[in-house]
Each structure stands twice: as structure tokens, then as C-alpha cells.
């Protein structure tokens, strides 16, 4: 209903292409393209109108272009029946897409130096971010990692938009062997990075957070959580995050994220309900001021 909120549209597929180990689908979706900001995602219905697959699939937006009034591209790997169905779409098929969803990456006001770290398909949302940062005069240094060479995508684009681009693979088939966070410290020092942006699996984000903390610079993370709706209704994508008041809450990655300040996410407690989280079994409401007075009077 608002010009900034998400929309649900049936949009025609412009193209479906293989990108190494991934698929990339581009849809014509002007209302999503015009609202989109880097870091936001789309939630796609799979299986057609009477589909037995009811959960929407969330995908980070990899690219937005002005062609045909506005196109949106997202990347995915085939993991099951839903993504397999998506990979079989053809040009002009209609897809039911909701977006743009979630909080975008905050952008620095000044032209600062930014290190962008992506693991696997987590690299996707960093590309529109890189373009937005460059438009603000920021320096961008890319680090992209994956299990193997075919899981590190858009290396050419990364080289083109970034001052430096570092690639890593677990098997050493491309770039440096090892995790993508291993060269992060060196890149931060050489590029004099002021901020790190990271997207990928939780262990990678945690490690990126540790490196950023060692260098005393802030980190923005985009988490990749399992979602059923993407719109904030189902409460399935919760992550323990510390609020400004110091209280840990189970917040929804879809509407409260997917972008969080790195130091606020309790990476070690992801997948659990921390005992001190608001409303956890061990949680106790802070006593009212009046209660304390009564205690003292009674004691």
C-alpha cells in the first residue's frame, strides 16, 4: 500500500541462465525494481497456481536493470523440487514474486573504503551494494569464496567494480585455497577498509565479525535463514539479536533483517533460544522500580 513497502506481482520471466553451479532468473518487475535497495530480497512462489509447495523461496537480488521498465535478477542453486521447478522456467512464463523485502544495507554518508565478503550464493546481494557504494565514491574491495570454482560467480564483474578482488575456494580450484575470511585481515590492512559488508553462511559471518572486531571496524551482515513466507508472518526465520537496550530478542530475519549490525548478532547462539533472550524460559522481566523499594522495605 505504501510506495516503499513490498508488492506482490505476477511477472514475466525474461531469461533463465546457468551461471556456473547456479541458476539466474531475470523477471520483468518494474514495481520491485524501482523500490529495491541493495541487500533486499524477493520471495518467489514455486510450482504454479495450485502448487502443493506452499512455502515461498527467498532469494537475494543480484541485479536490477532499467530495461523493460525494470528487471530483477536473482540467483539460486537447485536443492529440491521447488528450485528444480524454477530452473525449468522459460522466457515469458509468469512467476509470482513478492518484493522487495527486508531491510537494505545501510550506506555510508562519506566516501569510505568498504570490504565486501561473500560466501557461495551469499555473494549475490553484494553486487548491487558494490554499485551503490561506487556511486557514492566509496572504494570497494571484493572477497568472494565458495566450495569450488563453479561456486564463485561473477568474478569478472567483481574485478571490474572493485579496486581489488580476492577469490578463495575450499578445494583450491580457483584463487586461494581456504575460507574467504582468511585473507580478509590482509585486505582490510592493505585497503585501509573502514567497514566490512558480509553475506553468507552463519559460520562465515561469525568469522568475518571476529576479523572486523580485531581491526576495530564495523561489520554489516546479511543473514541467509530458512523462511516460509518472507513477509514477517510465519515467525520461522528468527535469529538472536541484541537490541540497542542490551536485550536479546528473537527477531525475524525477513523483516527485521536480513541485514544486521554484525556485533549485534549472537552467532554462537544461532539455532538456539539463548537463556537470557526476551521471553526465554530463563528470562525474567526486570523488576519494576516499585518492587525494589518494597523489597528493601521488607528486608
Amino acid at each position: 500500500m505504501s510506495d516503499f513497502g513490498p508488492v506482490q506481482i505476477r511477472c514475466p520471466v525474461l531469461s533463465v541462465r546457468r551461471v556456473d553451479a547456479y541458476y539466474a532468473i531475470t523477471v520483468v518487475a518494474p514495481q520491485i525494481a524501482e523500490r529495491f535497495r541493495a541487500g533486499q530480497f524477493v520471495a518467489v512462489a514455486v510450482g504454479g497456481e495450485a502448487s502443493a509447495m506452499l512455502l515461498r523461496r527467498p532469494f537475494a537480488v543480484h541485479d536490477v536493470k532499467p530495461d523493460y521498465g525494470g528487471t530483477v535478477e536473482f540467483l539460486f542453486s537447485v536443492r529440491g523440487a521447488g528450485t528444480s521447478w524454477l530452473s525449468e522456467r522459460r522466457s515469458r512464463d509468469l512467476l509470482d514474486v513478492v518484493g522487495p523485502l527486508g531491510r537494505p544495507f545501510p550506506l555510508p554518508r562519506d566516501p569510505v573504503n568498504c570490504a565486501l565478503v561473500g560466501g557461495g550464493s551469499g555473494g549475490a546481494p553484494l553486487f548491487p551494494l558494490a554499485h551503490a557504494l561506487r556511486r557514492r565514491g566509496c572504494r570497494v574491495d571484493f572477497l568472494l569464496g565458495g566450495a569450488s570454482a563453479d561456486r564463485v560467480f561473477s568474478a569478472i564483474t567483481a574485478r571490474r567494480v572493485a579496486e581489488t578482488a580476492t577469490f578463495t575456494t575450499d578445494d583450491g580450484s580457483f584463487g586461494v585455497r581456504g575460507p574467504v575470511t582468511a585473507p580478509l585481515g590482509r585486505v582490510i590492512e592493505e585497503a585501509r577498509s573502514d567497514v566490512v559488508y558480509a553475506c553468507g553462511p552463519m559460520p562465515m559471518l561469525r568469522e568475518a565479525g571476529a576479523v572486523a572486531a580485531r581491526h576495530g571496524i564495523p561489520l554489516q551482515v546479511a543473514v541467509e535463514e530458512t523462511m516460509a513466507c518472507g513477509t514477517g508472518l510465519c515467525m520461522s526465520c528468527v535469529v538472536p539479536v541484541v537490541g540497542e537496550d542490551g536485550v536479546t530478542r528473537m527477531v525475524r530475519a525477513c523483516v527485521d533483517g536480513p541485514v544486521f549490525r554484525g556485533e549485534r548478532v549472537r552467532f554462537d547462539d544461532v539455532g538456539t533460544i539463548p537463556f537470557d533472550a526476551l521471553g526465554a524460559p530463563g528470562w525474567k522481566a526486570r523488576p519494576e522500580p516499585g518492587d525494589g523499594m518494597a523489597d528493601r522495605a521488607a528486608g
Partner: protein
Amino acid sequence: MSPDLRTRLGSVHLDNPVLTAAGCAGTGRELAAFFDISRIGAVITKSVMLEPRAGRPAPRVAETPSGMLSATGLQGPGVEVFLQRDLPWLLSRGGRAGVSLAGSGVAEYAELARRVSEAPGVSFLEVNLSCANPSDQGRHFTDDPREAARVVHAVRSHARSDVPVFAKLAADVPDPVALAEACAEARADGLSLVNTVRGMAIDPRSLRPAVAGGMGGVSGPAIRPIAVGCVYEVHAALPELPIIGSGGVRTGADVLEFLAAGASAAAVGTVNFHDPSACVRILREVEEALTEHGVRRVADVIGAAHRPMGAPLGGADAPGGA
């Protein structure tokens, strides 16, 4: 002429029979991005508890055929935040509020009933009885009709008398009709049928339960025949008691199915996750279907499946007719 979509839940008059099911629409805020929530019959809110609750660890959901398995553990901000922030927001948008209550004991349900029903603008209460009962080894209140009746009685006694109380029941109990009758005797003003059906999904890769809690609740079109059957049987036994039907409503035809089985309204649940505009689409489909059937009023369809073959829709003896 477009059909009259108005319906009644006891003393509550609603503009139309399409509601949102508890736990599938928050308090309407998220859906308001996709449509004007004042257009639907009512928003039944996510179950409210006395205290804030963090819920269950992730993973909380798994996709199942034509449905999903979920175990969110009633995460919510607690009744205070609900009354100060969420309920006023819903009412400010012109939404009708049915408030679902969840307690961890009879006393908690009673206090919730008192506090929530005294808040201005609450159209009706729904009692979520599929909560763990601490005085019954953590079994659900619906597992024992006497326990369910105790809760319903407490809620009815403590709620403002002009706010109807609907007991939300599960279908996977030994005798849903006996459970419904126990709630009716405890002075429930109506019933909400059905809650999720207990189940499990095993992750094929890990061979471990797919949701962290192990067991979860199955919802979505997969359980619709179970829900419709439950509504039919309970309406046959208790024809005077208004019923909110829910369980896999996806289309206008599904709403008509629940109405014909004996429900006075139908709540859209899991399908909101799939299609955030579902409620207004379904409302349009209900209108079209009624026109196609040549039915003038929603009220004429309620209980239609119980009438003899060939009986006209909207006959003078139609139960539920205004």
C-alpha cells in the same frame, strides 16, 4: 445484484465471512502492505500470552505436501505490548479484532480474558486450547474435555459479558464432538475448528526431525478434509453454536465448503504465507461463487450440506439464516 456477504458469529456481526486464522497473520500489520485489512471480516490475532515469549529454536518450519509443519512455540511480546501497540494499530486501520488467547494455566487464561476483553474494540475472543497444560504432564488442554471446559469456563467468567468467546479445538482428539459439547456446556459462545494436526517430518538428508521441537503442527490444504469433517460433525451435534472454520482455506470454493459444512465464517491460515493477498482474492471468489450459485446471502449457505438433497439454498428452514 451482488450477494449479501454479511455473517454473524453469535452477537458479532461481520461484513463478510473471510477472516485470518490465529498465528498466520500477526496482528494484520504485515498483510496491510498488500491489502486494506478493513476489507476482511476480521483479523484473528496471533495468540497472546501474559508474558513475552521467545518461542522454540529454529528450524521451526518444514514444507510438507500441500501444507507445512510448524513449531514456533507461540513467540510473542506478551499482553501488555499487544494491548499498547498491536491492538490499537489494528483498530486504527479499521480492522475487526478477534483476539486469540494462550495460557499456561487456567488462571493465566482468566487474567488474559479479563484484560483483553476490557480493551475497547475487541470483537471476540478465541481460546487457543492447543497449549501445553502444566497440570496434566504438558498434554494439550484439548486432550481432555474436562480440562478444556475448565479453561473455557474461566475465560467466559472473566471476559466482559458482551464479548463472545470461541473455543479453538484440535481435530486430532479421540472425540471432537464430545470436546465441543464440553466447551458448549462451559458456556463457549462458539467454536473455532480446527487447530493444526500434530505431526512430524524427517529431514531426508540428516534423518533427524525437520523442526527443532521434533513434533509440530500440520496446517494447510493437506488438512482441509479433516477440518471440514470436524465442522460437519460438530455442527450436526450443536447446530445452534456458531463455528469459525479453518484448515487449508485457499480459495473461495474452500470457504463455501466450510460454510456448507456448518461454519459461519472461515479463517485463512497457512495460505497467507504463500499468498499475502489471499484474503482479498478469496473474498472476491466467494462473491463470484455465490453469484454463480444464485445465492443472495452467505447466511443461506451455512449448513447447506446438512439439508436433504434438492433442498433449495436459502430455504425458510435454513439454520443460521438471519
